[in-house]
């Protein structure tokens, strides 16, 4: 079963003076459930535009995007919000933790929008899962970069989404912390989670089973490194 189906996705922005800029041009690919895929490209390649569409934050100008079978382009803003809450976990380059909330409160946050009952136990469990069980009561600002990113990963798992979208998750980390974050993502992948990771870093691609290279708004290459076991 496919998690993501991108069919001839295009995204055109209008500049301030009205001239159109094409960020994505007829991009098509399929990502199966349980895959770990890296989308690699330089800045301005269109990878951020693609990630926004895959994350249901944006809709394509033309083409069709299906997330586990649902056509996202025709959904309302509210419906896409609900989809994000239940099916997608986000991990950002700059972590985006709430600075005035504790690690535990940050992990719990997505439950606020999924319609689920508050579940402090699950939040604790997830913090333990990322190795920060002892840090639950610390404020985000008291944690190191690597710790913050691990809290963010625990947060992305709160609503148990089938798909994780990571945007340069190691971009703000030293290599040791980056390594441990990648190990964590790999182990989540082994547990059956579908992971799509956007990066400009070639080294990161080695963790994934498949690499899509995007250049000037089109897919330049699609390489399967090793066979992946679907969940």
């Amino acid at each position: 079963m496919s998690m993501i189906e991108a069919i001839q996705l295009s995204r055109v922005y209008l500049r301030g003076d009205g001239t159109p800029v094409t960020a994505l041009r007829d991009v098509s690919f399929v990502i199966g459930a349980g895959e770990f895929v890296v989308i690699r490209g330089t800045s301005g390649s269109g990878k951020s535009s693609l990630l926004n569409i895959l994350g249901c934050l944006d809709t394509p100008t033309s083409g069709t995007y299906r997330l586990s079978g649902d056509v996202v382009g025709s959904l309302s803003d509210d419906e896409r919000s609900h989809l994000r809450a239940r099916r997608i976990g986000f991990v950002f380059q700059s972590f985006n933790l709430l600075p005035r909330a504790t690690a535990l409160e940050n992990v719990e946050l997505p439950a606020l929008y999924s319609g689920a009952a508050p579940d402090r136990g699950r939040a604790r469990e997830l913090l333990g899962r990322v190795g920060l069980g002892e840090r639950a009561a610390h404020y985000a600002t008291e944690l190191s970069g690597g710790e913050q990113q691990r809290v963010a990963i625990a947060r992305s798992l709160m609503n148990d989404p089938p798909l994780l979208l990571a945007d340069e998750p190691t971009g703000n980390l030293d290599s040791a912390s980056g390594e441990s974050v990648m190990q964590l993502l790999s182990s989540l992948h082994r547990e059956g989670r579908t992971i799509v990771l956007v990066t400009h870093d070639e080294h990161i691609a080695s963790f994934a089973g498949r690499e899509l290279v995007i250049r000037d708004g089109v897919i330049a290459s699609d390489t399967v490194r090793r066979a992946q076991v679907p969940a």
Partner: protein
Amino acid sequence: MNASRLLASAWRSLTRSKLRSFLMMLGVIVGIASLTALASVGEATRQETMRQFKRMLGTFDTLTIRPGAGSTRGMPSLGAVEPSLKFDDGPAIVAGVRGVKRVALVQQAFDLDVSYRDETAVPLVLGVSPNWADVRGEAVASGEHLSDDDDRTLARVAVIGSDVAQTLFHGEEPLGKVIRIADVPFQVKGVMAPRGAGPGGVSLDNMLVIPVSTSAKRLFNRDYLTTLVVQLEDANESDRVADDVRAVLRERHRIIPPAEDDFTVSSPRATLAQITSVGTMLSKVVTGVAVIATLIGGAVIMSLMLIGVSERRREIGLRRAIGATRRDVLRQFLVEAALIAVVGGAIGIVVGAGGATIGALLQKLPPAYEWQIIGAAFAISLAVGILFGLYPAWKAANVDPIEALRS
């Protein structure tokens, strides 16, 4: 998102930047405190005015008839009024008007010397019909009230107020003693229970009563009255009874249209409502200032909220990414604004009630804490929070998550 989680999260964000929250509340605190204090002091004053009038009149369920057209201000003295109200007008009203319980007859003067041995007082001297004490619900502290016999026999007896008792007798037993009212001897047969202060804080106990027939024939030598006090069966019928009384008196006084009444019927309840409804100029100005302070408080909330929204763009973007709808974000910021205003309002109510207590103590009045005032202050704060929170919350809801998350 349920209400308690929404409130809890708003409370957290409020308590985590206490100084900013306090600054946001300040205007609302000042405004609501002044409004609460003003309303409470106003209410305390109104209630005290009511009590003073109640003490003066004994009861509000009456109509007062005075001689002459147009309402007379102050106390008419027998020597200065038109001789239009006659003794027979009283029984005629009882007989001719439905819903009248009693009519008391009064002749009054306040310029007569009253003396006992070397002591002299100048109290209000009232010649009253024996039912006067019943109309007013007046009690005697010692001795007895005037009786029907006293009135029929033109007895020279007096029931004196507690001030007069004090001035003339200095603690000596007044009962049975003979005092002289404008040199006419009267025997004291009773001392009235103290009534306290009337309107303007004037003592209501510097007075004495004698039978009205005695005052008419032995003291004033006048056959007309200064006042008729009509007691109603049902206070709600006041207007109808007043009309009927007017008709009876016009007929008895042979007044033919277009001639005007030679008497005035007034309802103490109506007069009082008029007195207590008119706020002073000062209180209107201060109320206006308090309203403006509250609105400024709202504007402060709005501007600091707007700053907060732009500072928290990343947070908004994140919340949107993890599934918050526009409405979730709108609600979050609206609840924060409302909570700030309501907490500010609550502090304002406490401060205002404290101010009102001090104000009341300075005026030597019992403070009035009305639930309506507190409820209204609370509602105003909530309304201010929602009103001025709406625009920032709308701005927050429309933050583009893609823009906001771009590092």
